[in-house]
């Protein structure tokens, strides 16, 4: 059983992806025995207002119980709260995703702090997508830079409370640098999608504890085979692999609103039975 906490559906603007539609993604779930996927819109990253892309993705995926939407939110757009209120009445949401470098967020600004304070009341996970592609290979027109992880952690830890924080796309070197933050914050998690290097999974586990690491694929931009091999061939035991593939999600999920928790629990129980 696999739960994927970091997947996308949609077009990447800079090269053609053949496997980017909802239908193909569903086949990917079947092929790799993935029971649950937290999915965001790729298109939404590049829209001035991501809401249209979020809604379109929801329409395409709402009928598949395996796909839970994670809307892309630009915290500097004043409409985010109104949209989130409306969406929460309609369907389960497994948190929201922000992309500090793609939305050029001013991490030191009042708007971002205000967003974090107000978002805290929703008791939903906050997914911080640290990177989407190797910036050495980015399109020359893109002005995207690296996220300053120290800076964003300082702001988030001060202004966001109660719910889980997932650092999606973190690198192995960043895990080592920020291991103390993971140790000091019980609700701080990361995904596996950008962790690489010989023995890097086991060393990540040693650094921050296995309960902090969840499986993320970065699909459809990255090969699912690479992401699954990374865990299966890590040298971790079967039970440790199970924690990364699915069990740790249950630690992350309780932060969801009660109604969503019921939905997740029901779905997970159905699959486990």
């Amino acid at each position, binding site marked *: 059983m696999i739960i994927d906490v970091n997947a996308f559906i949609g077009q990447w603007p800079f*090269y*053609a*992806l*053949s*496997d980017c539609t909802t239908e193909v993604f569903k086949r990917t779930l079947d092929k790799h025995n993935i029971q649950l996927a937290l999915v965001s819109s790729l298109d939404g990253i590049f829209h001035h207002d991501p809401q249209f892309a979020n809604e379109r993705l929801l329409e395409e995926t709402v009928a598949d119980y395996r796909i839970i939407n994670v809307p892309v939110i630009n915290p500097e757009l004043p409409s985010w709260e109104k949209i989130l209120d409306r969406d929460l009445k309609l369907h389960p949401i497994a948190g929201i995703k922000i992309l500090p470098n793609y939305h050029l967020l001013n991490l030191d600004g009042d708007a971002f702090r205000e967003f974090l304070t107000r978002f805290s009341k929703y008791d939903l996970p906050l997914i911080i997508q640290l990177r989407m*592609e*190797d*910036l*050495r*290979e*980015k*399109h*020359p027109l893109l002005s995207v830079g690296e996220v300053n992880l120290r800076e964003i952690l300082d702001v988030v830890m001060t202004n966001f409370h109660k719910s889980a924080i997932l650092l999606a796309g973190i690198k192995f070197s960043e895990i080592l640098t920020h291991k103390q933050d993971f140790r000091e914050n019980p609700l701080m998690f990361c995904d596996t999608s*950008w962790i*690489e*290097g*010989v*023995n*890097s999974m086991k060393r990540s586990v040693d650094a921050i504890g296995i309960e902090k690491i969840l499986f993320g694929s970065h699909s*459809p*931009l*990255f*090969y*699912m*085979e*690479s*992401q*699954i*091999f*990374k865990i*299966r*061939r*890590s*040298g971790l035991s079967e039970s440790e692999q199970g924690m990364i593939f699915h069990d740790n999600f249950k630690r992350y999920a309780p932060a969801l609103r009660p109604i969503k928790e019921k939905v997740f629990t029901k779905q997970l129980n159905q699959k486990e039975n």
Partner: protein
Amino acid sequence: MIIDSHVHFEQDRLDEIVAFARVSEIDKLCISTLGTHSYIPAPTREEIIVCNNATLMAMESYPDVFVGFCYLNPNDGCEALREMDRCLERGMKGVKLWIASKASSREVAQIAEHAMEHGVPLLQHSSNKTTGNSEFGSNSSDVVILAERFPKLTIIMAHLGGNGYRGVADVEKHTNIFIDTSGGEPTVGITEHAVNTLGAERILFGSDVPGRSFDVQIGKIFGAGIKDSEKDLILCGNMKRILKL
């Protein structure tokens, strides 16, 4: 059999590297040493000898696993040629060039000619970074110039992902250029594009371990939407032919 065409030595991690290669069922690793503690972009003659001795030590420790490639600084002139001779006499099977000199330079031409005379492949680092290459780092256009000068030399252009779609287009007509898949993220699409454009017989599996990992990098081949026969060529057949194994 699976052959990894692009692996680097790291002090005190040889056993770990071999163990993880075995988990991914990789039988042979083409290894070069760019520095025994950290990679050296423009090594001195003394540093080159230390690097290549480390490769020889790896070959002696695991003779059935490691296939040595000698690291050279083309700016060393005749000394570099003598070092190539020393390494090849002791069993190395290829030459590795990194970022001491561009592939289009006269200095590299001297190395290339000597490698061609010995009948060994030249593994040349290359990338087309949006953010810019290092001063003496080669891009795919530099590699093409080298290939035009020495059409009978087998050139392995490293890093399919780093060279990208531009790199594939640049080398298409130059059939003595192979591309390895090493390094970079496991980005969907570029492996399929390279196979469709160049043919699977010009693509080689490589990992760039230990900075990268066997599992993620080999997933680029197993996950690609290409035929099993093409995967076999990439994972083994092509490199076996190049190394005359």
